[in-house]
């Protein structure tokens, strides 16, 4: 399994494991012993979300929407199908909606009740997205939260917050920055950030 720089304590038997790490390890052994879990399946699950499914997927969707009006239109009408055409489907992305930022509207996504997030296009959510401060404040003071991310939305522009309370998952399509005329899809995908696709960032060239 690839290890991208950070250590995995479970590889170091018995040394300096926190009580919680020990408890997780003990539960894994128990569930494997009882035959409920295939330890190799755990490795596949971890590797999938570590190396295969992440915000690069969403960035490709955005870049294509910026360069291909037919695709952008499809994304507006049926985001689930349009995104599936790029190969991104499944768990936590079964019902997709794309939210296009415009000069009139800035979209921002939260899940106040848990941490719902479009996994196939963005991977697993960052810690801040799942944190109590974000979940509690995004709906009542979105502009203050945005300022903490360095995003100032002009007063005349509506901040529209989407609370993911059902199985519908939202992907923000940020505005294409000026100065990117003639860029390839690949170049454009390279500047699209995860935060911009949640609505807590804007894309700059």
């Amino acid at each position, binding site marked *: 399994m690839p290890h991208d720089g950070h250590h995995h304590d479970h590889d170091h038997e018995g040394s300096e494991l926190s009580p919680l790490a020990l408890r997780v390890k003990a539960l894994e052994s128990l569930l494997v012993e009882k035959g409920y879990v295939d330890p190799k399946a755990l490795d596949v699950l971890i590797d999938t979300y570590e190396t295969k499914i992440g915000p690069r997927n969403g960035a490709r969707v955005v870049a294509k929407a910026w360069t291909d009006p037919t695709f952008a239109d499809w994304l507006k009408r049926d985001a689930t199908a349009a995104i599936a055409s790029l190969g991104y489907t499944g768990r936590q*992305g079964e*019902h997709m909606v794309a939210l296009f930022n415009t000069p009139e509207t800035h979209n921002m996504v939260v899940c106040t009740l848990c941490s719902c997030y479009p996994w196939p296009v963005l*991977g697993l959510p960052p810690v801040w997205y799942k944190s109590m401060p974000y979940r509690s404040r995004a709906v009542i003071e979105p502009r203050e939260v945005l300022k903490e991310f360095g995003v100032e939305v002009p007063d005349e522009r509506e901040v*529209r917050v989407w609370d993911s309370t059902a199985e519908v998952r939202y992907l923000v399509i940020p505005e294409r920055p000026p100065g990117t005329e003639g860029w390839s899809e690949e170049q454009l995908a390279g500047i699209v950030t995860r935060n911009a696709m949640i609505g807590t960032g804007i894309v700059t060239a």
Partner: protein
Amino acid sequence: MNGPHDMGGFTGFGPVLHEYDEPVWHDGWEPRAFALVLAMGMTGSWNIDEARHARERLPAMQYWRSSYYEMRHFALILQLIELGIVTAMEEEQGGMAMPPKPVKRVAKAEMIPAILASGGPANRPSNLPQGFAIDDKVRVRTINPSGHTRLPRYARGKAGQIVAVHGTHVFPDSNAHGAGEDPQWLYTVRFTAQDLWGQDTKDAVCIDLWEPYLEAAP
């Protein structure tokens, strides 16, 4: 239930601390805990709504104090013990004391890509008539269910407008309690920040709400 999970509108949790170039995991136990939750979910012993409800039923202080993966781990243990899949003593001691209880499926490594790629769509056919259409004005019912609900407290009693219709979806309030999927019409309702919070701005919050949460507004 009006549980600790229903966070919208709270203040007092401090600033949103975001990390530049954040790694997927922050400690070695996190990926193992995450994968255990997913793999046990794949045994078919509970549905997504029951899993969410287990997290909500954690003691409030434990819920708020826990990191995300800690919270998921504690909720997993709660479910495993409640369903008799493991006993409290086995969990405590980390070894098998009772023979395994049969489960519907054990996900083998080679099955994982297909399971993840197909996911678990929540739309279901239903003969129920569609009660609301786009642009309709609605009011959220003032209800305080004792069980699982996906109706956040901050929206209760508030007036809004339908902006999207998503068809009929599994109704979590029923599905979390073994009462069947009971598919209901699902809408996105837009609420102005003025109506929700008394703020004089152009801002708005859109929330996905099932028909039983809503009534027509004049």
